[in-house]
């Protein structure tokens, strides 16, 4: 068991935990947390595999950087939708 392999396995476990959470939890913000955890798992598989050779492979590093930014973009969009829905719900309650 090399270091790279170890982290790859942890990555897969995180992916599984996140996937299950995203399917099983109804609360939106926690669903979102689960999706983010799922993403971290994928990134970990990328980075772990990148370090499995003799020299580090920088292409997966670049891909993960892109992935992190895309993930935060998606999260921000979802959160803004949550806030807008919540505002509408509160207006309904007030009315």
């Amino acid at each position, binding site marked *: 068991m*090399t270091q*790279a*392999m170890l982290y*790859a*396995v942890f990555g*897969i*476990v995180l*992916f*599984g935990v996140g*996937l*299950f959470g995203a*399917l*099983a*939890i*109804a*609360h*939106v*913000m*926690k*669903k979102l947390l689960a999706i983010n955890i799922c993403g971290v798992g994928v990134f970990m598989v990328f980075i772990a*595999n*990148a370090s*499995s*050779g*003799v*020299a*580090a*492979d*920088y*292409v997966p*590093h*670049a*891909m993960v*950087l*892109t992935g992190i*930014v*895309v993930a935060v*973009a*998606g999260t*921000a*969009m979802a*959160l*803004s939708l*949550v*806030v807008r*829905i*919540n*505002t509408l*719900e509160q207006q309904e309650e007030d009315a």
Partner: protein
Amino acid sequence: MFNNLTLGRSAQHKADLPVGVLFMVALAIAAACLFLTMALIDFGPAEQPLVTLVASHLEQSGVENPVTAVLLNFRSYDTLLEVAVLLIVALAVMPANSEQSKVRFISVLVPTERSFVLEAFLRWLLPAIVVTSGYLLWTGAALPGGAFQAGALLAGAGILLLLAGHHSFNFNASAARLLLVVGLAVFLLVGAAVILSSGIALAYPQAWAGILILVIEVAATLTIAAILVLLFCALQVEAPRANYEGLIKEERP
């Protein structure tokens, strides 16, 4: 699984599926993960041909940090599209009120409640943050760091400024909209302009690669910082807007 989304005031992890189904899902995911793990361990480590390719072309890329070389030269197209992704999110969360496009981008206002600790802190911290983000951007060429890290840091400064309550941002202002697209626009312009010399989009001439990458990165940093601050503003709908209305009356002569 997705039909029952609760915004819920309580964070209870109430499932909308029967326990039996959940158990099956858990079992399926566990089995799939196990299979994947076995397959990955079975395959073992791999030597990637790209390692040597990146190393041997690094000199032609115009930067010394291999990650920056991949992001802004070898696979710059990905990064271009990524800036577009950020623009989409910015547009999606932008306050819908387009009538405010005449109001200035940054306005000074009198805070409703002052936090002297934060203010004193900010006076020292803000310049430091700006300098550090510039440094991160500059070193991105050789060391870890780059547009995204620098942009995030700069955005942190903006958010602190917002929290201190002395300033507010209006992202419908023309200056703000320019800031939101400048990263994508400069990236596209540079990508198109280099066709004149190399014949291929985004293929920088080797002598100019370093400076062109820096130009793109500076523009991208500004856009990223602006978009991140916008994201933060968008989630704080009520709080700033309350004293925002008062501000417009005061500001206008």
